[in-house]
């Protein structure tokens, strides 16, 4: 049975409009002009237990509104939504006790105290029995390597350390469902990898369902088998990463290193050429020009010592889709 069912969710906001300036601010007190924004415009999808889904879309597409509705914070105008058999906004307390939520931009730990204190508070908030809590906490501390961080005031932790503590905090009550809202934003490469590895294990080994919203396509590529793309409040795509790639005419990228001197190229089937120092990269359509032919043509102009052919980065695919769908 599906763990999350969302059918035809609609949510509109009234946004107060006013022009800049003091006079307009004063006018706005007396009479405010509103425009209606459809943040969710008939969103439907369903999730099975144990899925790890990437929920992507440009800023303002409706991602956070969806997460707020699924989290029970926000009541939609219409539509159906059930999470593990409960309607989130009708049974807030019972519902939120079974989900974990991490906001990459907002730390949930008490700023001036060590994370250990926040963990104790969370045990009391979620009414977790002491023995169960200790076991879960020790497991998370080990997996996320928090032992040394627990006794340091949170404000003194680095962003990456804080994120690891935040992840642990959202999982102390062992929720079967985890929402991750931009969990890798601002993290350095090592921390990003650590977070990704942890989330992957959590999903594979513990069967925790994960909904990941992110702008980092490397997160998606590393973790998600399924991608849901939202734009202007509507689901534009729901399927595998491979299927998402095929939405854009298949393109490959050829990278040539060690290019010296001027290069002038005009080859049919090559869409875009960029040059960075001695590195040349070409986006080409393999149906129109096979890679071997392309390299042969390049070899006529200069000596090709080292090259690499790769799929178009998902980042670019998504950017092109956003552009194509005018998001």
């Amino acid at each position, binding site marked *: 049975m599906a763990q999350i069912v969302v059918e035809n969710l609609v949510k509109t906001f009234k946004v107060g409009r006013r022009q800049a300036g003091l006079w307009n601010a004063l006018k706005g007190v007396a009479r405010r002009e509103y425009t209606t924004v459809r943040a969710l415009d008939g969103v439907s999808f369903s999730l099975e237990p144990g899925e790890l889904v990437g929920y992507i879309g440009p800023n303002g597409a409706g991602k956070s509104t969806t997460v707020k509705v699924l989290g029970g914070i926000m009541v939609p105008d219409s539509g159906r939504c059930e999470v593990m058999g409960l309607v989130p906004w009708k049974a807030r307390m019972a519902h939120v006790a079974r989900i974990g939520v991490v906001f990459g931009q907002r730390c949930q730990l008490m700023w001036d*105290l060590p994370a250990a204190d926040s963990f*104790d*508070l969370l045990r009391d908030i979620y009414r977790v029995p002491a023995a169960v809590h200790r076991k879960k906490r020790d497991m998370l501390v080990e997996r996320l390597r928090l032992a040394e961080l627990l006794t340091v005031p949170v404000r003194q932790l680095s962003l990456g350390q804080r994120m690891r503590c935040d992840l642990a905090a959202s999982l102390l009550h062992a929720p079967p469902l985890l929402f991750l809202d931009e969990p890798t934003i601002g993290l350095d490469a090592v921390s990003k990898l650590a977070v990704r590895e942890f989330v992957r294990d959590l999903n594979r080994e513990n069967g925790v369902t994960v909904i990941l919203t992110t702008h980092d396509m490397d997160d998606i590529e590393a973790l998600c088998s399924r991608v849901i793309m939202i734009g202007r409040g509507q689901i534009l795509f729901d399927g595998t990463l491979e299927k998402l790639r095929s939405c854009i005419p298949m393109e490959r990228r050829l990278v040539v290193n060690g290019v010296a001197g001027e290069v002038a190229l005009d080859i049919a089937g090559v869409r875009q050429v960029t040059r960075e120092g001695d590195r040349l990269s070409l986006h080409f359509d393999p149906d129109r020009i096979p890679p071997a032919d392309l390299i042969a043509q390049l070899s006529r102009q200069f000596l090709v010592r080292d090259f690499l052919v790769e799929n178009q980065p998902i980042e670019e695919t998504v950017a092109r889709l956003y552009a194509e769908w005018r998001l």
Partner: protein
Amino acid sequence: MSGIRLYGRYVSLSLQSQMQYRASFVMFALANGLSALLEFFATAALFARFGSLRGWALPEVALFYGMVHTAFALAEAAGRGFDVFHLHVRNGTFDRMMLRPRSTVLQVLGQDFQLLRVGRFAQGLFVLLWGAASLGMRWTAESVFLAVLSVVGGALLFSGLFVLQATLSFWSVEGLEIANTLTYGGVEAAQFPLSIYRKWLREFFVFVVPIGCINYFPLIRILGRGDPLGYPGWAAWVSPAVGLGFFLVSLRVWGVGVRHYRSTGS
């Protein structure tokens, strides 16, 4: 774990946070007490010049002043989360509270227990006791009980005002200034016996925002004076309950505000 025990843990953690900055805590607490005390000295200077205020002597006024300040200090300490609630909405702390399986009121109250208000509390208590001593007042069990009850009732009333102010911020941040005027204006007004004010203002502070109730009626009884306004004697015992009632009503209004927030998200 019951709500009360959880609240206890919130308070203890909040105190631990504040003790991280011990020096600034001590300075803020002192400043908090001294700045309030200066206000009282200003009042005392006026009395030195004019003698009395419509039949009330300075030590009597000190009782009114002291009682409202101790009550307000308690409300400021416990209700800080509501006082600065618009910040919790803006930076998303309130969303986080909604994501936790506990009442939002409990969580907002637990956000910050501002111990530095002990400064205002101490000066209020000091002025109150000074007033009583100057009058040569004899404290009986009944009058102590009534005084404590009134302070608690007053703290509940001011907390209710903070809750209403916080609820307002679900709709607009611009309304906060008005709410602030009401709260701080109320504190200023209740520093003096209610009977010195014009009728419409008196009735506003008895029946609409019953700030006047919480110290005026009990102190009339404690001082053993007749009420120049002619309200019945049992009003002394009703007024602490008024504080509780006001607080409970404000919690209902808060519920309406939370429902509004969940449908608009702003």
